[in-house]
């Protein structure tokens, strides 16, 4: 059953290739309400190369006792600016991978952190234990975060065959193969794995 699903999905990816634009993988991840609460990160695995860093640092804000966004995907080497926009002091630390603790600071101040190792960083505040977010650092620039309906789009992908993987804090997905033509859009339907 599972194999059948994978074969169908791969066929769909290949057949849906169109020639409208160069190197775009777009599609939808199934996940229902869970994706409304917490987006998934769709990425192309094992893509080697020297990639340009984003010109502007992405921001992880803290407001009304919440990290915003809940999931932030970045390329390794990217510096994330952690901002406190709340009325109370917040801390920023992660027990994952590189393990960091940027300290505790009041409203209006920003502290940067540069992610060098690929992985999922559980983002926590030691003043407010219920606050949680995730920074997903990837060795590739080819990734996207799903919207509330599970839609995603990865653009600027060079021609080739790729493994499409998905990370989500609760759901597990079946990896897929995507063949990206020289010019065109590849449609992908990402399905959950297991129970």
């Amino acid at each position: 059953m599972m194999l059948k699903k994978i074969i169908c999905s791969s066929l769909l990816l290949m057949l849906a290739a169109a020639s409208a634009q160069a190197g775009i993988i777009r599609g939808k991840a199934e996940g229902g309400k869970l994706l409304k609460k917490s987006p998934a990160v769709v990425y192309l695995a094992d893509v080697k190369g020297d990639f340009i860093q984003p010109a502007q640092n992405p921001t992880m804000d803290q407001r009304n006792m919440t990290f915003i966004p809940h999931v932030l995907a970045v390329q390794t080497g990217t510096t994330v600016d952690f901002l406190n926009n709340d009325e109370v002091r917040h801390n920023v630390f992660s027990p994952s991978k590189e393990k960091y603790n940027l300290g505790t600071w009041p409203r209006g101040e920003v502290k940067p952190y540069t992610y060098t190792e690929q992985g999922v960083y559980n983002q926590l505040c030691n003043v407010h234990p219920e606050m949680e977010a995730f920074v997903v650092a990837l060795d590739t620039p080819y990734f996207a975060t799903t919207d509330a309906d599970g839609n995603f789009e990865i653009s600027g992908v060079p021609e080739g065959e790729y493994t499409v993987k998905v990370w989500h804090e609760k759901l597990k997905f079946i990896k897929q193969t995507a063949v990206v033509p020289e010019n065109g859009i590849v449609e992908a339907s990402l399905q959950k794995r297991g129970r």
Partner: protein
Amino acid sequence: MLRKISLTVALIVLVGGFFVLNSENGYSAKRPVGEQSQAQTPRKASSVAAQRNILSGMVTDPQGFAIAGARVRIPGLDDFLLTDELGMFQRLLVEPWLQHVEVFVTAGKEGWLNGGARSNPLQRNIRIILQKVPDFDDPLYQTMITSPISSRIQRSQRDCANCHTTHMWEWGASKMGKTVRNERVLASYKKLQKTISTRQANTCADCHAPIAAQKAPGQTDLAWAFSGGNLSNGIECDFCHKIRDVQVDNRSGVQKIESNRITLGRGMMSPILVSGPYDDTVNMVMAASYNPLYSKSEFCSACHQNAVSLPENSSWDPNSIYPEADQYPLYEDGQVVPDQWTYQEWLEWQNSLPENAENKGQQCQDCHMNWTKNMMPYYRYVVSGNVRRSMGTERSPKSIYPHKFEGATPSRLTGSVNLQVQSMQEEGTLSVQVGVTNVNAGHRLPTGEHSRNMILLVSAEDEDGSPLDFQDGSVVPAWGGFGGGKTDYAGLAGKGFARITVDGNGTINVPVWQAAAIQSDNRIKPAQTDLSEYKFKVPEGRDEEIFFITATLIYRKSFPENDADMGWEPEEIIMKEKTIESGDGGL
């Protein structure tokens, strides 16, 4: 607050324009123009301006004796002054919005009722008189009942909820507001009554029904309190805020607190004596007294630290389980068995931290009386409605203590742990290492009742979801449940985290009141990591495949055996779940 200041500023501009104008010309408001000499003018000008911007004064008792170490504050502001040995204080009014208006200044000190005095731009030197809190506790005092249900009968003008509506609803929905009417507690109590002496059983009410128990500490029947002997649903406002001191020892609740249950004056308008963390609350309704104990863990130790005494000449060796036990008096050289031990766990964590550690000094209230996402938006007054205008103090949210007392909620449990999963695959075996770290709790995980436990489950499967056979490694112990039910995990790959008691016959996991000792305690200390290892069999010829390893950490309120015995549905919360791919393929 802003409206108040604006109105006052407007008033000063209209009425006091004369003074401002003359001050600029060097004339004091009290002296006619003609009395000033030209030579004096420049010096007088700066002097008056300076005086207007310097708030100074003295804090004394009614007889005029200085009170040193009193906290002097403009209500609602973060900064405060301490009076010197002569009771004196001085503060520059650097805030422009305060320089031309009347400013109310308060003072508070432990053991004294907060006081206040007004200072206007022409008279910045003030005297604040504090009254001593009567050193008396009236056992016949009728504690005010605020419980949302029972107060329908009792509600009167002297109800805390009339002004502190938000706090009342927060508290009413919290576990602290339902300690008496908790069906599980009552069922446990009835079971307890059958197995031990009434005297031991009656310590339950000391924390769960303290108003009733305060009349007879250690001798109050919780079932009586539940069935109507106590109109309260839980730990009432007027009970907690009458506490003056807590002895940190292993007795329960009301046995170790000192209260000030008194009525000041007579009639409905007599002020209600209330102790709390604010030194700037001064009004006609409450006789408030600043008490720093309310923002310290020692306050919580009243009910979150106790132990069961062993029979005379009986003891066990707590150092065999807790190597640091001989450094702490609460272990009582093994003559007691730990019951509620959260305060001691917190204390050991705090003492292990270096002086410059970020969490040094963090108290129970800093986490459990703090804001959460579901309380948004922030409120700035601890009183509601019209009272805000007449008596409210606008505060920064960081100086407000919401009264929801959140503990083991799903979001808190999730944020308190981290799972690390690593794998290595070679010669037909998938080796897995799982680390569970207590990253955000200032006590062990789990904590509280000895029945609280955590289960770690570890599994591996292929891409089709077919499980790999577990070969070797840690397994969930017998207390994880053998009944074959969906929440019985004994024998599965994984681990259990709990404090395990043992009685004199060697039977383990007995209720703490029947225990002779603690046999083991592997609950995870703050910032500590527990590591465990597992091996799964990779089917022949499939060494090149990728497998998926999942670690799941589950919080359980009670042991399965106890759930079955009591007829309770198991209560479980998934704290964290993490799935990785074997090799380097996953994130």
